[in-house]
Each structure stands twice: as structure tokens, then as C-alpha cells.
């Protein structure tokens, strides 16, 4: 080998070594950079993992702890390392929860529950009740098999307690409203019942006074009528106190209507009021309703109509139609009518402008018709008359 050749090779090696050195340095720098990046990312994850008020634990597929966050360890007054490798159910034995954990493992579906009541803290010490939002999420390996799970726990005791307090307050409010309603109801009913009783009292005086000298038929008749009135008031009260879910039966509405008309005529025997029934040809008279409740509605509406008709000859028209699977009953009277300002209030309990009346008739009717998924509407013009429309679905 020539000297020059040797030199050349040496130079060339040296160059290659230089290059390799350079590459090596570059690689080292790159490596350090990547390491830093990984470190930073790890730090970031670590920070996210730890700086939260949510308790987080990472478990393997055998429910052994892989890692917990600070919050988890702090809550249980343990160090993070205490958990590593320990089995969850060795620390906190619980059959029900084991079932849930196994289900998540098997199905790969998350389990999430809100506001669950825990009787024990995580050291199994008995404790005041606490409430938790908690979840168990499966973690999948590259073959999409569950190889671990994330457990999160969030103490929501304060929130649940606040909610419970709110519910309690609401119930107390309702209760006190019911009581004041009851007081008003008692006052209204007492007042109403005293009127027929005072008439009976007066009639008794007249019977006593006549004692065989004069016929007492009128007094006996009056007493009977006032007893019926009193009975009606009591029935109204009872109906209002326990309007219940309708007892649906197939019923003939036209028979109910005739019964109602008969009842009202008993209470207003001498009034000169004509009742016209206008029934369309395709009207279906049988319908699924609670006949007792619907009769009550018809009674109330007809009673109102009779009471509103004064002086001149009264006419009550009852139209019966079938429209779009609904029964439509329209009751039109030519009575006194209702003031525009009062019209929106007639369905309110205890609202009345009558000198005799509890103000419950229409609120009872409204309640019953809504329980039947129907509709009741009212229209009225002062000194012209009132129209009531009842719509009821044929099938419940």
C-alpha cells in the first residue's frame, strides 16, 4: 500500500468517525429531548391525575391496584404506594360490588351511578351516611380485551343533602297549603250546611206551632228538600277530598245524562226550565269512563245551569257529537252568565260568586275530566248565558 493511499484511507476513516460522532451527538440530543418530552407528558398526566377532587384508581384485570391518585390515597389517609399491588376486594370486601366489577370486566361496558348512599367509609369504619357519584370504566389492550379498569369516586354528600332539604321544604310547603285549603274547605262546608239546617230548624218550629191545627205537608216537603241539599254538599266535599284514579268501565253516557237531569229536577222541582237534547245521528253513546265520576261532572254543570237561570223562561241545550274518536258534549244555558273577569277563575277551588256554594263544583269537574285525559272549556256572556264543552276520548 502506498503511503499516500494509506493517508487517504486514514482521512476517510477519520471523516467517517467524525460523522458517526456527530450523528451520535445528534442522537443523544434527540434522545434527551424525547426523554424530556416523555417526562413532561408524564408530569402532565400525573398532574391531571392528581390535581382533582375526584378519587381515581387504576386496577388490573384481577382488581389489583396499579396506581391511585393523591386524592384517593389522601381520602383514605394512606400513601400512594400503600395500594400498589394490593387487591381491591382484599381491602374492601363486598359481594355486591364484586358482581358489578366482574360484569364490567366481562361485558366491557362502563358502570356509572349517581348519588349512591354509602354506609361505610373506605376504611370500613361506620360513618355518617355519605353519597357518591361513582363509575367503573374498562381499559382495553391492543386486542380489544379488557385488561384493566378505572375506578372514579366523587363525594356528592353536600349536593344530595341540599337536594333532600329542598324536597323536604317543598313537602312542608305543600302540607301547609293543604292544611290552609282544608281550613277554607271546612269553613265553606260548615257555612253551606248551616243554611239548610236553619231552614229545617224553622220548619220544625212551624210544625210544632200547627200541631194538628193545619196541614204540615209543606214543612215536611221543605225538610226533605233541605236534607237532599245538605247531602249534595257533603257529596261534593267527599268527592273533592278523594278524587281518585278513575275506575274505567264501558258506560252509556245518555243514561248518565238522564240520571243527572232527574237529580237536578228533584232539587229544582218547580222551576220552569226546558231541557233539549240534540244528539247527532253518528253519535256513539258507549264510552270507557268512570261512570260515577262523569255523572258527578254532569250533575255539577247542570246544577250550575239551573242556578244561573232566573226569572224568564230557561232553556238548557245539550248537544252530543262524536268527533275524531272523541265524545263532545256541549251544554248551553241562557242563564245569568259569568263576568269576563271571573271567567278565568271559575275552575279555581273555592272560587264562587254564589251566595250558596262551596266553589268546588267546577274544580272537581276539571280534575275528573283531566283524569280521563279529556278537556273541559267554558265560555260565557253576562246576562246571555254559559256554554260548557266537554271532550272525552272513547278509549282511555
Amino acid at each position, binding site marked *: 500500500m502506498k503511503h499516500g493511499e494509506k493517508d487517504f484511507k486514514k482521512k476517510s476513516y477519520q471523516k467517517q468517525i467524525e460523522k458517526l460522532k456527530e450523528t451520535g451527538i445528534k442522537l443523544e440530543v434527540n434522545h434527551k429531548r424525547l426523554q424530556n418530552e416523555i417526562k413532561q407528558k408524564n408530569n402532565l398526566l400525573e398532574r391531571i391525575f392528581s390535581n382533582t377532587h375526584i378519587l381515581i384508581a387504576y386496577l388490573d384485570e384481577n382488581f389489583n391496584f396499579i396506581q391511585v391518585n393523591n386524592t384517593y390515597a389522601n381520602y383514605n389517609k394512606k400513601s400512594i404506594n400503600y395500594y400498589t399491588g394490593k387487591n381491591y376486594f382484599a381491602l374492601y370486601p363486598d359481594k355486591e360490588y364484586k358482581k358489578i366489577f366482574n360484569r364490567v370486566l366481562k361485558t366491557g361496558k362502563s358502570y356509572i351511578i349517581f348519588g349512591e348512599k354509602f354506609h361505610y367509609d373506605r376504611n370500613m369504619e361506620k360513618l355518617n351516611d355519605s353519597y357518591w357519584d361513582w363509575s367503573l370504566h374498562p381499559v382495553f389492550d391492543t386486542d380489544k380485551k379488557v385488561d384493566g379498569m378505572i375506578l372514579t369516586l366523587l363525594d356528592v354528600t353536600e349536593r344530595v343533602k341540599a337536594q333532600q332539604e329542598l324536597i323536604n321544604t317543598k313537602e312542608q310547603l305543600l302540607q301547609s297549603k293543604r292544611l290552609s285549603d282544608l281550613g277554607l274547605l271546612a269553613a265553606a262546608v260548615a*257555612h253551606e250546611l248551616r243554611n239548610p239546617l236553619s231552614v229545617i230548624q224553622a220548619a220544625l218550629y212551624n210544625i210544632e206551632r200547627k200541631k194538628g191545627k193545619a196541614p204540615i205537608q209543606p214543612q215536611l216537603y221543605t225538610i226533605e228538600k233541605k236534607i237532599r241539599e245538605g247531602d249534595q254538599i257533603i257529596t261534593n266535599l267527599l268527592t273533592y277530598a278523594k278524587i281518585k284514579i278513575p275506575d274505567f268501565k264501558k258506560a252509556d253516557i245518555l243514561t248518565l245524562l238522564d240520571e243527572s237531569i232527574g237529580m237536578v229536577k228533584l232539587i229544582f222541582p218547580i222551576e220552569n226550565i226546558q231541557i233539549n237534547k240534540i244528539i247527532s245521528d253518528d253519535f256513539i253513546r258507549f264510552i270507557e269512563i268512570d261512570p260515577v265520576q262523569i255523572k258527578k261532572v254532569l250533575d255539577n254543570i247542570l246544577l250550575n245551569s239551573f242556578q244561573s237561570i232566573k226569572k224568564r223562561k230557561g232553556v238548557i241545550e245539550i248537544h252530543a257529537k262524536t268527533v275524531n274518536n272523541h265524545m263532545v258534549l256541549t251544554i248551553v244555558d241562557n242563564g245569568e252568565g259569568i263576568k269576563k273577569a271571573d271567567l278565568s277563575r271559575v275552575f279555581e277551588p273555592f272560587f264562587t260568586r254564589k*251566595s250558596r256554594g262551596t266553589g268546588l263544583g267546577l274544580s272537581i269537574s276539571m280534575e275528573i275530566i283531566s283524569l280521563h285525559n279529556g278537556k273541559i272549556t267554558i265560555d260565557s256572556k253576562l246576562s246571555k248565558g254559559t256554554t260548557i264543552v266537554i271532550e272525552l276520548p272513547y278509549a282511555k
Partner: protein
Amino acid sequence: MIKKILIIEDDKDMCNELNEALMDLGYQVHLAFNGLSGKKMIVKDKFDCIVLDLKIPKYDGYQVLNFIHKNNIRSKVIVITARMKIHYEEITRRNHEQADNDLLKKVDSVLIKPFKLIELINEIEKP
């Protein structure tokens, strides 16, 4: 001596019984079924005694009382009502002015339904 009585009461059966009993005792009885016609009769005629129900249509009993008071009507006034005191307060708070309470204090007597007719007759006869 009381001779002429006006009864303002919307329950016609009550009116009939009172009318029959009082006429038998020799009183001259006039009937009004609402506050408005009662008021008109008070304007037109002079009565020794007015028997007044409070819950009546068209001018309630309080409005009639107010009218009697303002116009210095000298009749004896007997209020008949189904209201008890405790209920009375609650109902008046909703429906009437507080002044109604004072109006009631000015009447000669208040009978709570159901009263015995002899009590009413005693009140009418009381000097």
C-alpha cells in the same frame, strides 16, 4: 212595638218558613230575595225591623248594612248568618274590607244559623 218586618234572605224556603211563623204571630212580613231589592224596599218603606242574611246575591249583606248605616235608617237590624267568628275573619280578609267588621258591631243582634225560631222572635220582641 214591632209590627212591620223586612226579611232579606235568598233561600226562598227559609223565607217561606219565617214568613209563615211571623205572620201567625201577627207581624206584617215583607220579603226580599237579594240585596238590591232589599235596598229598594228600605228606601220606599219604613220597617220596624230588618232581618238580614249576609251572603246574598246583588249587594251582599255588608253593603246593605253600610247603606242602612249611612242613611240613618232607624230600623232594628238582626243579622242571620251561617258564619262563625273564626271563619268570619278568614273569609272577610279575602272578600271584604276590614270595615265590615265594624259594621257588624253596630247591628242590634247577630244570630248564627241554625238558630231556633224562638230566638229570632225573642230578638224581635226585645225592647
